[in-house]
């Protein structure tokens, strides 16, 4: 409650300041009073109707006090009329960084080359990196609001597609002022252009029973190692990390990141008979068969009489009632998460947890969409040394990418061009059948090094 009151007091102080400012500075006068008259926005008005929260109503609320937003609405309405965009990029930044600000200048000019909506002629965005899991306290959010009301448009997006908090809409002059305040709060700019980009991690260990590693720690440890590559774009193209705590991959990392770090486990699925029985009472045999057993992609599940459940070390079983159990052959399980999702708690990820790392996910341009490829089937991620190993691997990947990718080529395209085996060799990673869907389906390969490779594998095995 005290925060609420403090917020109100701050708001009151702002209004007082606004009033006292009037006589002092004539150009402030207009800004601090009601803003100028709104443009007609018949198209945008349509988007104030309907039950979903309306961003247009929000823009109009801001426009009541800011000429800036009156003109932004004017330009947006023009886009709705003509079905054309009117922003162009440029070069705007903050002192000391080469990226993180998305400059926007209006291209909607009159016959004299003057902006049609002059008060919104500059509408730059600051990309700011969120905390892992996108948790906030209201004090922080209110401070964001206050500083952005002062220096910017008052429009903030939570969050952009890369995960940034997007402070949308500031003049060139105000970008630095806004950044200084944001930076003093302990927040930093994210990536833009050919740079390591802002990252995202799932809610993970903070609130999810499926979490297989400390996503927030991995997120911060890795990303904060590459701040120079975030703030000073100098890579062939963008490089994205994403961190998902389990194979449900809530961060969509396999499709959207150059390096995807996904939690998994090596040992058996854990079971809880109390929750298993509770689930079975509620859902019954039909749902168990149709929704759980039949949907296991590798047929690793069987319903058994408890007395017939196998005793092997790789078998786990959860009781359904006093007579029957669901048996899992963990050697066949691919850790897809389906049964664990359906019977949450009754089934759970194992204890020997770690991560799988995939490389090369990206969207369409230029050669078509690519999913990431398994590069590290499993590594532990618990000790300080484990985290060091992760950042070291990331560093070596980025170094290789920086030296070998062509301009505007993503890691996936680079690997497509040079071949996975070449990439692995350079990274000093042993090949593993977990990296492929199947071995090669054509004979077009020169294999005169075969015996040497076999000897190397044997020698490694013996040394281990």
């Amino acid at each position, binding site marked *: 409650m005290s*925060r*609420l009151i403090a917020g109100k007091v701050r708001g009151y102080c702002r209004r007082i300041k606004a009033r006292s400012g009037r006589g002092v500075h004539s150009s402030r006068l207009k800004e601090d009073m009601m803003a100028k008259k709104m443009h007609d926005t018949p*198209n945008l008005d349509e*988007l104030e109707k309907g039950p*979903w*929260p309306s*961003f247009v109503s*929000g823009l109009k609320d*801001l426009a009541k006090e800011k000429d800036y937003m009156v003109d932004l609405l004017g330009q*947006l309405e023009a886009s*709705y009329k003509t*079905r054309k*965009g*009117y922003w162009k*990029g440029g070069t*705007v930044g903050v*002192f*000391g960084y080469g990226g993180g600000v*998305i400059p*926007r200048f209006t291209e909607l000019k009159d016959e004299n080359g003057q902006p049609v909506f002059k008060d919104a002629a500059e*509408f730059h965005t600051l990309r700011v*990196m969120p*905390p892992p899991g996108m*948790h*906030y306290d209201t004090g922080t959010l209110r401070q964001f*609001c206050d500083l952005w009301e002062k220096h910017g448009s008052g*429009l*903030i997006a*939570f*969050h952009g*597609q890369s995960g940034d908090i997007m402070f949308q809409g500031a003049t060139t002059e105000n970008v*630095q002022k806004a*950044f200084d305040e944001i930076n003093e709060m302990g927040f*930093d700019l994210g990536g833009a252009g050919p740079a390591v980009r802002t990252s995202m991690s799932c*809610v993970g*260990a903070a609130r999810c*029973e499926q979490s297989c590693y400390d996503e*927030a720690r991995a*997120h*911060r440890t890795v990303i904060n190692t590459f701040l*120079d590559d*975030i*703030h000073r774009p100098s890579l062939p193209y963008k490089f994205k990390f994403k961190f998902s705590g389990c*194979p449900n991959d*809530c961060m969509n990392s*396999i499709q959207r990141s150059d390096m995807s770090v996904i939690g998994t486990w090596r040992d058996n699925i854990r079971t809880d008979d109390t929750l298993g029985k509770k689930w079975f009472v509620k859902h019954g045999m039909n749902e168990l068969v*149709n929704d759980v057993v039949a*949907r296991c*992609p590798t047929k690793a599940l069987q319903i058994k009489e408890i007395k017939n459940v196998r005793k092997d070390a790789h078998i786990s079983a959860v009781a359904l009632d006093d007579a029957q159990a669901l048996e899992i052959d963990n050697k066949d399980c691919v*850790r*897809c998460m389906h049964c664990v999702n359906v019977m949450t*708690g009754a089934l759970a990820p194992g204890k020997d947890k770690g991560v799988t790392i995939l490389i090369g996910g990206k969207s*369409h*341009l*230029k*050669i*078509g*969409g690519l999913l990431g490829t398994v590069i590290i089937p499993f590594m532990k991620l618990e000790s300080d040394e484990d985290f060091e190993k992760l950042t070291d691997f990331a560093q070596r990947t980025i170094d290789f990418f920086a030296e070998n990718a062509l*301009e*505007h080529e993503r890691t996936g395209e680079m690997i497509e061009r040079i071949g996975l085996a070449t990439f692995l060799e350079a990274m000093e990673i042993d090949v593993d059948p977990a990296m492929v869907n199947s071995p090669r389906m054509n004979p077009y390969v020169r294999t005169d090094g075969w015996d040497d490779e076999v000897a190397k594998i044997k020698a490694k095995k013996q040394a281990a």
Partner: protein
Amino acid sequence: MNAPAQMRRPKETGVPDNKKYLHPTLAKNYGNWRYHDRPRPGVLHHVAHGGDEVWSVRAGTQRQMDVYTIRKLCDIADQFAEGRVRFTIRSNIEFIVADEKKVAPLIAALEEAGFPVGGTGNSVTMIAHTQGWLHCDIPGTDASGVVKALMDELYDEFKREEMPNRVHLSTSCCEINCGGQADLAIIVQHTKPPVINHELVANVCERPTVVARCPVAAIRPAMVNGKPSLEIDESKCMCCGACYPPCPPMQINDPEYSKLAIWVGGKNSNARGKPTFMKMVASGLPNNAPRWPEVAEVVKRILMVYKEDGRPWERMADWIDRIGWPRFFEKTGLPFTKYLIDDWTGSRANLNASTHIRF
């Protein structure tokens, strides 16, 4: 740039620690959760190994939020949720409470303030989207507006959990597809090659970069009206728009010829099958601002057929895997045209090399 006279050096602090932002019960049980269930749409109930419980109430937002809206959400968090919130990847906001009695009044407060509670489990959740006309430099359409119009139509499905499995949607304002993979996506599809302003190319574009950017090598340097410019082999051009960002004088957006396409069956998760990319199933829809009714009609049609026909836990991709593409087109009434047959690199893997046909 009018930088301040006294230049302040940035503090390269990077990603901030989230510990101080966590709800106290989350901080206490970090890494120690046992299971969860969903007592009602829009509410997740998590139980820790030690017995602590939290209820997370999820609400939809407009993502592009004005400071008044954010402060309104903060007031609600201060009143109910220990002054803490978190956002999901799809711009929903979550309020966490450790006392079940707070759930109902919290929901009431959110709904009263205009934020729909839902988006959990097998609902249609908020649409992942991009910037569009509001802020992008290359948009073929708007983003927030399309999303607002569609979420108005899908409002009830956001608040209910009546779909076979969760439904993720995305929109993208150009073919770069920043909106990402989804069960159902709406993406701009240009149908005419770029219109080149030859007066500007030499001064604005780094020509070799633009030539290199084209996926089908359809762009080549040329002298036009005595000025160095670029020309397009229109028989090769597939109108992707990749040349437009590095060379704005190659205008790809057109009020009429930039259409909207619908894609289905992208799956992010590894659950059941491996992750999948989505497939184009409809195109040629008009970019009909401000409410895009033709797009909404197709989206709703696909979703309603899936809702009716999908079995529990089948994502859009799983459902289509079961019923097959011929039946998908039959049931949705969408025309299967020659443009939906893949002819890009590796496309033969998408052709049916078997007698597996459902009749």
